[in-house]
């Protein structure tokens, strides 16, 4: 059958222009979607409180992408301490999360997924009596835990099998979790299969995971294929910088060396109080910074 592959005579119905909200078939989780954003929101507590909380999430989400787009140029520019501050609330979360890292190259976009999760979570729980809640933005999640509560977060590595689980208790500082790696939806300068970070906010975890994943690298290694970010996505905030396109076979020693480089960055961030824990995975090997309970020991396969 000579069926066409990608097919459509013209741009499809621009459903992405409208924020969409729908309960997932389990009747418990709210799916919020607009353009590139997909959030899954779940709240725990009395039924009426849950309903009200999800309504608040939906209301906050509706204008959110529009606010970001209005300042997109600024948010895509490399962050300097003296750069003009954005006016949007989510943009402000992005900038605040990235500022501690502004010594090196970073744009506020490095925290966008986490900042969106933080913002919608804040709206979800505001004024509500909930025991727990989370907003999961494609793997970058913001958590709410009432005193005494705990939540187990499954940590998915992009290549799958070996994601561990992190147990986060109300007494822990961590309220955000994020994962980055070159296989993910965002570009990376590094070669980590996955770097999962727990931090006080999802935005903070997001930017830290991005930068730690960038540092898991073997500069100049011939098995690593790189190319300008702009060729992949013309308006990438990374411009002409070379991003990782493919990683060929690495020796055990090479993988260890790359992980060591990333771990050093993670430990520095932990010492500065920017992150609580991190788990770095490359070629089936894992390094953990911080409490293994938080970073989640990765499953070992025989």
């Amino acid at each position: 059958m000579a069926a066409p592959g990608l097919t459509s005579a013209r741009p499809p119905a621009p459903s992405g222009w409208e924020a969409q909200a729908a309960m997932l078939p389990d009747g418990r989780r709210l799916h919020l979607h607009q353009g590139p954003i997909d959030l899954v929101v779940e709240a725990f507590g009395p039924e009426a409180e849950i309903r009200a909380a999800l309504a608040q999430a939906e209301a906050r989400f509706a204008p959110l992408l529009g606010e970001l787009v209005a300042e997109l140029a600024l948010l895509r520019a490399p962050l300097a301490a003296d750069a003009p501050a954005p006016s949007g609330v989510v943009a402000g979360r992005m900038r605040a999360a990235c500022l501690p890292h502004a010594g090196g190259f970073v744009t506020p976009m490095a925290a966008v997924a986490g900042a969106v999760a933080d913002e919608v979570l804040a709206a979800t729980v505001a004024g509500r009596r909930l025991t727990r809640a989370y907003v999961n933005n494609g793997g970058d999640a913001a958590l709410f835990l009432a005193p005494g509560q705990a939540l187990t977060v499954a940590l998915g590595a992009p290549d799958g099998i070996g994601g561990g689980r992190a147990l986060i208790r109300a007494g822990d500082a961590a309220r955000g979790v994020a994962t980055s790696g070159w296989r993910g939806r965002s570009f990376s300068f590094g070669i980590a299969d996955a770097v999962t970070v727990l931090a006080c906010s999802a935005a903070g975890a997001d930017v830290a995971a991005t930068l730690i994943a960038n540092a898991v690298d073997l500069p100049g290694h011939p098995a690593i294929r790189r190319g300008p970010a702009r060729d992949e996505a013309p308006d990438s905030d990374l411009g002409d910088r070379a991003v990782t396109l493919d990683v060929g076979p690495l020796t055990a020693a090479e993988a260890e060396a790359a992980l060591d480089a990333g771990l050093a960055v993670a430990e520095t961030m932990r010492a500065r109080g920017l992150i609580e824990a991190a788990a770095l995975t490359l070629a089936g090997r894992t390094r953990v910074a911080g409490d293994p309970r938080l970073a989640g020991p990765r499953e070992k396969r025989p």
Partner: protein
Amino acid sequence: MDGTDANTPRKSVEKIRCDACPVMCYVAEGKTGACDRYANAGGRIVRCDPLTVLDAALEAGEAVTPFLGADWDGAPAPDERRFVTGLGAGTTYPDYKPAPFIVSREVEGAELVTVVTEAIFSYCGVKLKIDTDRHLGDETAMVRADGETVGHVTTAEYGSQMLSLGGVRHLTGGEKREGRVTCETLLALCNREAVELTIDGGATVTVQAGRPPIVDGQVESKMRVGCGSATIGMFATQWQGLADEVVVVDDHITGVVSEHQAGKEIGWPDTGIRIKGRRSTPGRYFRVAEPGKGWGGADIDDPLQILGEWNPKKGARPGLRLLMVSTTGEQHGFYVLDEDLVPRPAPLPEALRGPVSVIEENCEPALCTVLFVGGAGGSLRAGVTGNPVRLTRSVQAGETRVTCAGAPVWIWPGGGITLMADVLDLPERAFGYVPTPALVAPLEFTLSRDAYAGMGGHLGAIRPVEDVLARGGEYGAATRGVGAGPGHGPGMRWPRRG
């Protein structure tokens, strides 16, 4: 250096602006936007994962009615030739929920229900049929992609070498990278992409569904007409009188016309030829050489190396004319015995050109065939009915038809629902993956509404076709139609070809 830096000359990138959402991404040719949902395909923004509707009214390959919600005119009762496929349907996990689309439609008076899903196959693989005589590797040799073991060489079939790739042991039983590479390999093959495979102790072969295999850099063009013995049987009469002896060189069964039954029956005289190798029956020899990439799939570049001394007592004589030819006719040599009964190369007589080329003309083009094999057992069935084993029984009884994006599948007899589908019967890029790792394939179960009710189906979730087209599903309303021409799609009849 990694060739990555900004100094590398930039190729110009055709980019267009997507207006599907407020982000208004610029999207480069062949890439997706920030959402991974919309892509630039040939200068147009397209949705990557629309629900695909097969429409027998459309000519195969012709464009496609977008069937978007906005355009649906609400006309009732779309005709029975329209069939909602699992492609782009989205999936549900865990599977106790109803499948993403349970669609009812009227077909020839009987109300049918199609349960449509994109099934996640942790147990799946591909069977590859590679038309070649060349030796790709020993049976059971490991097949690798990107250095990882993804399958093995299995039986050699008539004119083809079979490989078996994937399966749960490679997908989830090995190291993580092995699983990922296996998944990528299966996905690429099922989506009709070219994949380079290396076989331990054997060849490197590039395989793509519907295309000739490339063995160690050489494109295989012809499939053998038959084994050496069969070639003798087919063409012995055409050689008679033009050559005194004909040997068809074949790694499996080399044929010798003067000894072969086909020669005997037409009174072919003995020649005193002696073939190295193991004689099976008269005129049929096994193992004349080692497997290889030369003549007839053996490691033979000079065919004379398989010949022993000529015996004058059994008919060898100076001037005897010998034709040696491979099973595809691509290689051939003509020789005349000298005074010492040693074959000397000579130009092929004009009269033999026809009989040699007829071998080649009778060869079919060499192709690669990719059959997807998956087990639709397990929890997936629960998306169809609350009583999963009834679905299995219904499929086995022929009451429920299983299709893969509308393409016919072959269901293995015995337990479970183990199906095979030719990936060329499916629309392009029908397969996806999840990082489990596992393949995602569209899958439809079609049965009568009564039967569906009888097995405890999710009756409350049934929606008419027009409603699905108008409103879409959980994961969006975009649909696409692809032509389902005669012999394709749900209206397909056996026999499948010809």
